[in-house]
């Protein structure tokens, strides 16, 4: 019996959610950080969406947020011209890194010892977390504001997407461009999958997949509406995308066939990300909410519970948590 998707809505933000990121899988589960224009990024338990804490300190909209692999550190990029590093366990601010313009993107190296930032001053910067007062290594080249900057290939290379309609691959040690890709439209988002070395890029109504090392095109899929973000499932079975028409689309990666589309958000979808175990994906929207969606609808996972009709009757009799069969968005 096919079940209908029940998304879990995480409220709390008061302005649009513009970025979100998952941590890796830790002994305490996995975590989710959301960047919001209200300036207060939040940390949530990844599988349930339960709020854990809010990072307080930024004086402007937070455009980018990331967690290190074991979710002990968080970093945020904001319109107050700073990137901040936080202790993700206590919520304390650890570092403030000043920039000359709005910072849009932050990314930790695998060992969390360096932080890559990129923003409206078109410069990539690498900060040493052990010597934060030292001048960052600066990499110039983009002619437009940097939207996203990511470490790749075991932190030996950097991938950056900017408003100059290019995605560039940089060698970290030489700070030189290795390869550049040009697009007809502004790149709206970029996701890097380290295990498979795949880069997911969205621009206009298109979702493209590239080999992250060579930047060779693997495949391209066109969506019915302008797409702001896409994410590929860890096992490469599906990918999800969201954009201007408020819907979340789910596609089969191998056949490129649209499998499902989900309505739920009340505004354009700005970001979508699969969880590290692939069991759910999270979406952030202009409506100020995050929603968690099941990859396989019907599975018992996190807060979702598969209740068969016979179980439903016995549950009502003795359960402390009555199983709800209808949930309004």
């Amino acid at each position, binding site marked *: *019996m*096919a*079940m*209908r*998707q*029940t998304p*879990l*809505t*995480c*409220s*709390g933000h008061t302005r649009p959610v513009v970025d979100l990121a998952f941590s890796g899988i830790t002994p*305490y589960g996995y975590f989710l950080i959301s960047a919001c224009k209200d300036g207060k990024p*939040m*940390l*949530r338990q990844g599988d*349930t*969406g*339960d*709020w*854990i*804490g*809010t*990072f*307080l*300190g930024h*004086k402007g909209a937070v455009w980018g947020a990331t967690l290190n692999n074991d979710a*002990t550190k968080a970093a945020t990029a904001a319109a107050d011209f700073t990137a901040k590093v936080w*202790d993700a*366990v*206590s*919520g304390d601010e650890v570092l403030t890194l000043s920039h000359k313009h709005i910072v849009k993107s932050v990314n930790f190296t695998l060992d969390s010892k360096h932080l890559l930032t990129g923003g409206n001053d078109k410069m990539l910067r690498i900060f040493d977390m052990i010597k934060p007062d030292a001048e960052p290594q600066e990499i110039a080249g983009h002619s437009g504001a940097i939207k996203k900057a990511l470490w790749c290939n075991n932190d030996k290379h950097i991938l950056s997407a900017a408003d100059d309609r290019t995605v560039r691959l940089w060698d970290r040690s030489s700070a030189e461009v290795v390869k550049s890709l040009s697009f007809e439209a502004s790149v709206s988002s970029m996701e890097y999958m380290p295990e498979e070395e795949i880069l997911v890029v969205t621009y206009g109504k298109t979702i493209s997949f590239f080999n992250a090392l060579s930047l060779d095109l693997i495949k391209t899929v066109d969506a019915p509406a302008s797409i702001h973000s896409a994410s590929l499932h860890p096992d490469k079975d599906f990918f999800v995308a969201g954009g201007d028409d408020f819907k979340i689309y789910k596609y089969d990666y191998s056949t490129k066939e649209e499998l499902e589309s989900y309505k739920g958000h009340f505004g354009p979808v700005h970001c979508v990300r699969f969880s590290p175990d692939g069991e759910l994906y999270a979406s952030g929207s202009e409506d100020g909410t995050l929603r*968690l969606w*099941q990859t396989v*609808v*019907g599975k018992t996972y996190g*807060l*979702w*519970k*598969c*209740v068969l009709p016979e179980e439903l009757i016995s549950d009502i009799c003795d359960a402390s*948590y009555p*199983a*709800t*069969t*209808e*949930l309004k968005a």
Partner: protein
Amino acid sequence: MRTPMSVLRLPRGPDPNSRGFDPDSPRFIALCSTTISSSTDTETDSVQIGEEQCARSMLRESFLRTLIAMTNKQVQFYMYERVKVNAVFVASDIDVLNFQVSDLQTPIGVQKEALLRCQDVILYSFDL
């Protein structure tokens, strides 16, 4: 007509009174090293940590008592951009991020009620 997937409950939202990061959570207890950052760099024995913690407790208590003493008093706030304003201190929020003040005297008039962002304050002084 497909049956909607059942849910145990909705995700918990933020606590309106705090910024979270529950110190009683298993993760916090396991991962949060002593907040005495100075002692994590050097080899400090437990006696010194104890002494340092006593000093910190005293300082914290003094600070909290100054907040109490300041209530309903005229306070001068020296802020960035050479701003010096007078106001009646009413309260602080729990993380000392904002001060609630009354009758804030600004160059463009007196603001009956206002919130001052603590990050913007360099120093403040008042008469006991």
